[in-house]
């Protein structure tokens, strides 16, 4: 039997004006288990808190009920107070007699009666309260960043700078991501490589950072602070530690007709390649789909030519397991496939390109060394049409319902660069809306229109037809209300961007939730934007939603600070109000795990034989208290009642119901 003390607060006149606080205290003193009841002007004041503390000591109280304002207001205050005198803080309950009683009722009799009932419910609950001790779990002081684009790089650098180990897993042979393919950045027009490659070098040289390039995450076990991650290092048939990156092999390889991914297939590379000059790690990789040696066993040119002896045709995929305390998801984006948008003739004419391809065409490291020519006949285009929102903001099946966010600005950049480098080119941009929320963004756009004379036309292109060496563009100008017919030399499509295809399976591994567009959802859209609802999993860059570079870097930094905050702790103190399963009752049906949003429930098969005559093996659930957030969904899903929630147990809630309905 508990010894419960009841403390009724006047809250000045806030409560006392409509609730007869004395009567509440007197009546509750009659409740079974209540050995002390009193009232005071301000329970939350220091004097009030001392009153509680003194009573606990003097009366040997085992539980406390405070009748006062909302627990959302002062529950933490009171819990701290009782903990100060050695009582478990979870032996305290607050009856809300201000917001939910005195403030909403005028009749003193009614309000007093209700306050008594609310107090009685709290007493009934305290009877069933048990001391709860928040669990502690140690933290592995190492972070994993999945994806080595600018988001991953920035995040890894920031974490490493704080002195923690970071591993980057990148599926491509080099880190750098999409930003390596970009020529210039808006709104400053500085060279993308010039600002990115130093960061890539930093990553390579940072002692705290380890890069697993050409690798993928295969499995994730564990929970916040204690993840075990399986990493597959794909065979690149080149010994990474021996290869010097001299690049000789990539010049001598006889297999020349390999589409060059780096240039988005606009030119070719060899079967052994280094993606680009500044690649990190600067190590050659053999494309097994094209290598003659790997396919037929005959060739071996690269092996002969490599003085370091780095080529190893027998290399196998390597699987390793590493421990991490936090995981950052920075899997990035890709432009969507444009197969379903044939009105723009993307598949019909090589001169219709996506914006990312256009970046390569404009780039000094691109297929034409930065000289803008049409892919079809290598002539300089005289009229270029940019089409925005290709696949974005589209509710039909082939499109994406969201705004891809970056297209307005990069299209503006492209248009401006075209006009700057080739002033005799006519540039048309067809837009639905031009969205420029960002520092110096709108100024940039206006400059394109006002100084560079880019033709911004409000309206969409209806169709593009290749005719001879021209592209007939038919579009509407909504402002002049007329239909335009433009003979263009090139058409550039601002394709919508979507989450990388690897994100969905990764989310499953991480038990992190995703929205319908395959972007990772954040724990709270406003207040916890860089955390996944799954504890210990953080989000950076376009994996969470479309973003431009500055925003990505900002988010990566924020993400790093969250990770650092986590890794800085030696132990994680959990919320003790978590679910727990009674394994004697559990039948292992997995219903609970099916509804758990956090993946906190795991199963194991245990022996429950009561006598030695046989084995009774049963599959039973167990809840990881470090992962569980205490929503209680599993407790209702569980048919046998094996699952219960500390702090809000079935019995506690039912005792409250009983007390209220009495």
């Amino acid at each position, binding site marked *: 039997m508990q010894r419960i003390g009841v403390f009724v607060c006047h809250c000045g006149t806030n409560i006392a004006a409509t609730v007869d606080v004395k009567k509440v205290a007197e009546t509750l003193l009659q409740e079974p288990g209540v050995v002390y009841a009193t009232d005071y002007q301000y329970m939350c004041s220091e004097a009030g808190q001392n009153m509680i503390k003194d009573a606990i000591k003097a009366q040997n109280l085992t539980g406390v009920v405070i009748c006062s304002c909302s627990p959302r207001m002062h529950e933490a205050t009171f819990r701290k107070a009782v903990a100060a005198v050695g009582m478990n803080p979870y032996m305290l309950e607050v009856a809300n007699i201000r917001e939910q009683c005195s403030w909403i009722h005028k009749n003193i009799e009614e309000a007093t009666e209700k306050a008594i009932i609310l107090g009685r419910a709290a007493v009934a609950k305290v009877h069933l309260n048990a001391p709860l001790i928040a669990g502690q779990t140690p933290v592995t002081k190492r972070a994993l960043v999945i994806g080595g684009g600018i988001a991953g790089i920035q995040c890894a650098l920031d974490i490493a700078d704080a002195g923690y180990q970071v591993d980057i897993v990148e599926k491509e042979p080099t880190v750098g991501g999409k930003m390596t393919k970009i020529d210039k950045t808006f709104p400053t027009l500085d060279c993308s490589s010039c600002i990115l490659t130093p960061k890539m070098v930093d990553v390579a040289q940072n002692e705290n950072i380890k890069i697993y390039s050409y690798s993928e995450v295969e499995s994730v076990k564990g929970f916040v602070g204690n993840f075990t991650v399986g990493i597959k290092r794909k065979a690149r048939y080149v010994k990474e530690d021996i290869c010097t990156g001299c690049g000789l092999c990539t010049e001598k390889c006889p297999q020349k007709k390999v589409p060059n991914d780096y240039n988005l297939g606009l030119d070719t590379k060899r079967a052994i390649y280094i993606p680009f000059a500044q690649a990190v790690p600067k190590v050659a990789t053999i494309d097994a789909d094209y290598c003659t040696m790997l396919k037929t066993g005959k060739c071996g040119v690269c092996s002969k030519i490599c003085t370091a002896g780095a080529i190893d045709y027998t290399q196998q995929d390597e699987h390793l397991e590493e421990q991490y305390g936090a995981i950052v998801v920075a899997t990035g984006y890709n432009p969507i496939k444009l197969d379903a948008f044939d009105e723009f003739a993307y598949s019909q004419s090589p001169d219709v390109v996506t914006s990312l391809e256009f970046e390569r065409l404009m780039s000094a490291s691109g297929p034409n060394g930065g000289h803008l020519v049409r892919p079809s006949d290598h002539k300089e285009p005289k009229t270029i049409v940019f089409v925005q929102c290709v696949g974005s903001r589209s509710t039909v099946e082939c499109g994406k319902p969201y705004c891809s966010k970056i297209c307005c600005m990069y299209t503006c950049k492209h248009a401006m660069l075209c006009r700057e480098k080739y002033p005799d080119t006519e540039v048309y941009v067809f837009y639905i809306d031009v969205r420029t929320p960002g520092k110096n963004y709108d100024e940039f756009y206006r400059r394109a229109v006002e100084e560079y004379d880019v033709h911004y036309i409000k309206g969409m292109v209806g169709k593009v037809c290749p005719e001879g060496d021209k592209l007939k563009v038919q579009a509407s100008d909504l402002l002049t209300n007329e239909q335009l017919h433009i003979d263009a030399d090139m058409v550039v499509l601002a394709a919508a961007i979507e989450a990388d295809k690897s994100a969905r399976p990764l989310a499953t591994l991480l038990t992190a939730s995703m929205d*319908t567009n395959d972007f990772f959802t954040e724990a709270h859209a406003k207040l916890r934007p860089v955390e996944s609802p799954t504890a210990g999993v953080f989000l950076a860059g376009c994996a969470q939603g479309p973003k431009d570079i500055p925003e990505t870097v900002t988010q990566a930094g924020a993400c790093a600070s969250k990770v650092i905050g986590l890794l800085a702790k030696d132990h994680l103190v959990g919320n003790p109000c978590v679910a727990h399963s*009674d394994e*004697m*009752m*559990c*039948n*292992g*049906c*997995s*219903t609970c795990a*099916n*509804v758990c949003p956090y993946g906190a429930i795991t*199963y194991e098969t245990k022996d429950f034989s009561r006598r030695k005559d046989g084995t*009774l*093996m*049963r*599959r039973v659930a167990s809840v990881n208290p470090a992962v569980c957030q205490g929503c209680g969904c599993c407790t209702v*899903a569980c*048919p*046998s*009642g*094996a699952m219960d929630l500390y702090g809000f147990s*079935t*019995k506690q809630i*039912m005792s409250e119901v009983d007390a209220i309905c009495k």
Partner: protein
Amino acid sequence: MQEAMIARAKELLADGSVSRVMGWKKGEFSYDISPAVFENADQLVDFVYDDFCGANVSKYLINESKKEGKILAFLKPCDSYSFAQLLKEHRIDREKVYVIGIPSYGKADINKIRAKGIDGVLGIKSEGTDFIVDTIYGEEKIAKFEAMSERCLTCKSKKHVDVDEMMGEEGEWNAESKRFDKVAELEAMTPDERFEFWRGELSRCIRCNACRNVCPACTCVSCVFDNPNSDINNKAAASSFEENMFHIIRAFHVAGRCTDCGECSRVCPQNIPLHLLNRKFIKDINELYGQYQAGANADEKYPMVNFTFDDCEPGIVYKRGGNQ
């Protein structure tokens, strides 16, 4: 059929692919058949498969699959749905069970024969579309469909799920099943009429737990109603509330998992149409969340552990169903 099944069982026992057989065993009067596990070929002399093998044997496989060796189970279409649902809930080790699907053209219900005034039944022979019933008071004849159990008359599927081998012909899903007619009939009543109907039915409940214990979806190690810590445990319905409570909660716990095998109503000694409660949930789920058949698909999440962003609001209940 029965002979072929015994022969096949013997074959599988002989070549060591299985070490036990789950099936049905003959009783005293040819209608009182019990589910049974046969440990060896000799015991199969008592094996039967006929019009009275209504009992669903899938639930027994939970314990049987924990034992050593593989067991051969003959499953009727409805049994196989229960079996598949149990697999989904990790209750049965699939590796330990060799499933042979057997057709079922509907099982007879002795109570329906008795209700026709045929009493003192000693033996029942099948003759074409009729049963010849030998009774203490002479021989009687009854058409098979008149003796068929209600659940078989509204059979949802003659098709199996997840069998290793079929004996006899595989049937089809019966989209024309009238199984929700009675539920719809009740829904069309006024709330007062419905209340009277269910009071009349549920007040007869003796809480013998036959419905729960036979139910292949009720596989808890310990039922919440048996758990002294649950605060709602009870052994007898001591008030009309408790009569309602037990059946509401039981139906709720099996909602989305109930395969509609109809065992609950078959075994109720008080003839309470308990399957209507389960069918109500199935009907609601089908109507509100899309067609769903428990057990039919191993990968599909069942409706109670699933949701869509645009599910209907609970307020829909005020608008649909039932007269005012």
